[in-house]
C-alpha cells in the first residue's frame, strides 16, 4: 500500500478512536464541570459497559444485532444505576469535597475492577458486531461497523449538546455548574442534579464501551487507557467545556492513530502524557478553553 491510502486508513482508525473517546471524555468532563468531582473510576464504568455488553449479548440468542442492541440499551442503564448508587452512598456524604472524592473514586476504581476480575475473570472476550458489511474503497476494504460507530457517536454528541443548550434540563445543569449555591437558592434540587449528572457521565462511558467492544474485546483492565486518554482530552479541551472536549478528542484520537502507526505505542503514551502534564502546569485552562472564572 502507498503512503496516501496508508494515511487514510490511519485517519479512519483515528476517527473511530476519536468517536469513542469523545463520548467517554464528555462523561468525565460533565461530571467535573457540574460537580467539580474528578472521577478516577470513570474508566471502570467504561469497562463495566463492555463486560455487561458481553454478558447481555451472550445471554440473548438469535441474530447478533439483537443481542448488541439489547446491550446498547441495557448495559448503560445498569452502569448508570450503579453510578447513581455510588453517588448517593459515597460522593454525597463527602459533600463533593474535591480531594476526598478523588480518594473515594480511586477506591471505587479498585472495587469495580477487582469485582470484575472475581466474577468475569481475567480473560478477554469478544462481542460479535451487529452487522459485518464491508465498504470497498479503491485501495482497501473497510468495516462498515466502524464507520457506524463514528456516526452513532456524532449523533449522541449532537443530542447531548442539544439537551445541554436547548432544554430545561440543560439549563438546570448549566445553572448548577455556574453556581450551585445560587441554583439551590432558586429551588433547583442540586443533589438530584448531581446524582443525575454522575449517572449520565457513567452512562456515556458505558455507551462508548458497548460501541467499541465488537472491534476490541471486553477485559477487566480495559478501563485504564480510556481513563488516561479522557483525562488528556478533558485537560487539553479545557475542563468542563463541551466544544473543547470534542475538538480535543478528535485531535487526540487522530494523532493517536497516526502516531502509533509510526512510533512505539509506549513512546507515544510517554510523549502524550508529558505534553498534557505540561499543558496543565503552564496553561491550566486548556489549549482551547478561556481562563476560568
Amino acid at each position: 500500500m502507498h503512503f496516501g491510502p496508508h494515511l487514510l486508513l490511519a485517519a479512519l482508525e483515528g476517527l473511530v478512536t476519536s468517536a469513542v473517546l469523545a463520548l467517554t471524555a464528555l462523561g468525565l468532563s460533565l461530571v467535573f464541570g457540574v460537580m467539580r468531582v474528578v472521577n478516577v473510576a470513570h474508566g471502570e464504568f467504561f469497562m463495566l459497559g463492555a463486560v455487561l455488553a458481553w454478558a447481555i449479548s451472550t445471554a440473548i440468542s438469535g441474530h447478533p444485532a439483537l443481542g448488541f442492541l439489547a446491550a446498547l440499551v441495557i448495559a448503560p442503564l445498569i452502569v448508570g444505576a450503579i453510578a447513581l448508587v455510588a453517588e448517593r452512598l459515597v460522593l454525597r456524604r463527602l459533600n463533593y469535597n474535591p480531594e476526598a472524592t478523588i480518594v473515594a473514586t480511586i477506591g471505587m476504581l479498585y472495587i469495580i475492577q477487582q469485582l470484575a476480575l472475581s466474577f468475569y475473570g481475567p480473560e478477554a472476550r469478544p462481542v460479535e458486531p451487529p452487522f459485518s458489511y464491508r465498504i470497498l474503497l479503491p485501495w482497501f476494504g473497510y468495516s462498515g461497523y466502524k464507520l457506524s460507530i463514528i456516526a452513532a457517536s456524532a449523533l449522541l454528541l449532537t443530542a447531548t449538546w442539544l439537551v445541554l443548550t436547548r432544554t430545561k434540563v440543560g439549563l438546570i445543569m448549566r445553572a448548577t455548574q455556574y453556581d450551585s449555591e445560587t441554583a439551590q437558592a432558586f429551588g433547583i434540587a442540586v443533589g438530584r442534579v448531581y446524582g443525575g449528572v454522575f449517572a449520565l457521565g457513567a452512562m456515556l462511558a458505558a455507551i462508548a464501551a458497548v460501541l467499541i467492544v465488537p472491534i476490541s474485546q471486553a477485559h477487566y483492565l480495559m478501563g485504564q487507557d480510556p481513563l488516561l486518554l479522557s483525562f488528556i482530552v478533558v485537560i487539553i479541551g479545557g475542563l468542563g467545556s463541551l466544544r473543547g472536549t470534542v475538538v480535543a478528542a478528535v485531535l487526540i484520537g487522530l494523532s493517536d492513530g497516526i502516531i502509533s502507526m509510526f512510533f512505539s505505542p509506549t513512546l507515544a503514551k510517554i510523549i502524550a502524557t508529558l505534553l498534557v502534564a505540561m499543558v496543565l502546569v503552564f496553561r491550566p485552562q486548556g489549549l482551547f478553553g478561556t481562563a476560568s472564572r
Partner: protein
Amino acid sequence: MSEASPAKAYALHLGIIALLFVLSFVLPEYYHGLLARIMVLAVFAMGYNMLFGYVGLLSLGHAMFFGAGLYGAGLAIIQLGWGVPAAFIAGIACGAVLSLIIGLLALRTTGVAFMIVTMMFAQVFYLLILYFANWTGGDQGQVVPQPARVLDFGATALDLTNPTVRYMTALALFSFVLLVTLAIVRSRYGRVLVGIRENEERTKMLGYDTFSNKLMAVVVSGTICAASGAAYALLFGYVGSSFASVQYSILPLLWVLLGGAATTIGPLIGTVFMYYVIDVTSGYTSAYLLIVGIALILLVLFFPKGILGTIRQRWLGWLP
C-alpha cells in the same frame, strides 16, 4: 506543635524504636522479613506524610520518588557495578533531583490539578521504565545479586541478605527518618508548613515565601521516599516496574490516611495495619486490591483523621 511536653513525645518515639528492636529477638523468624519490609515501606509512608499530612498537598505520584530510589540504587549496582553505600546514595540523589524538578513544575498548580499532574508525571516515569526495558528489566524486573549486597569493611562484612542484618538496617533507617520527621515537625519550619496547609494566603501575608517552603517540602518528602526505595532494592534485592505503578502511589496515601495524616507515628501504624488486614484476607480472596478500595472509601467516609488522628483528637492532644 505547641511548646508542651517535648519530653513525652521523644520518650514515645524512642520507646517505639526500642520496641521494634526488642521484637527482633522475640518474634519468630518468619516475621523478621515481613517487619523489615514494613519498616522500609513505613519510611515511604512517612515521606508521603511529610507532604500530604503537614503541607496538605495530596500527590498521586509518589511512586516515582520511591521508584527513583529503587532504580537509582538497583541499577547503580546491576549496570554500573557500584558498591552498596555508593548505590544507596545514588538512589537518594536520584530522588532528590527528581523531586526538585517535579516540585518546580507541579507546584505551579494547586488542588485537583496538583493531584492529576503528579499522577501524570509518575505515569511518564513508569512508562519510561517500560520503554527502556533492556536497561531496567521492564515489567519483569531484575534481581540484585546477593554478592553485590554485602557491605565490606575490610575486617568484617555486613551481608544485607542476612535476616538479622536486614532487620537491623531497616530499623536503623526507620529510626533515623522517624526522628528527623519529629524534629522537622516540631521545628519552626514545621510550623510554617502547617500554616501553609491551613491557609496559604495568610501565611504568605505573614512574610513567608510559600512556594520555596513547599518546594523544600516536596524535596524532603521525595528524598525520604527515595531512601525507602533505595533501601528496598538493597535489602530485598529486586527492582521492578510495579513499584513505580499508580498502585504504589495510592498505597502510601492509604497507609497515611489509615494511620493518621499529620501524625509522626501514623504512617507506621497504617502500614502495619494494612499489611495485617491484607494478610488476614488473603485467605479468602486473591483480589487484595478490593480490600484497598474498600478501605479507602471507608476511611474518607467515616474515619478521615485515621487511627492516631482520632486518638489525638479524643484523648492525647500532645501527640506530635
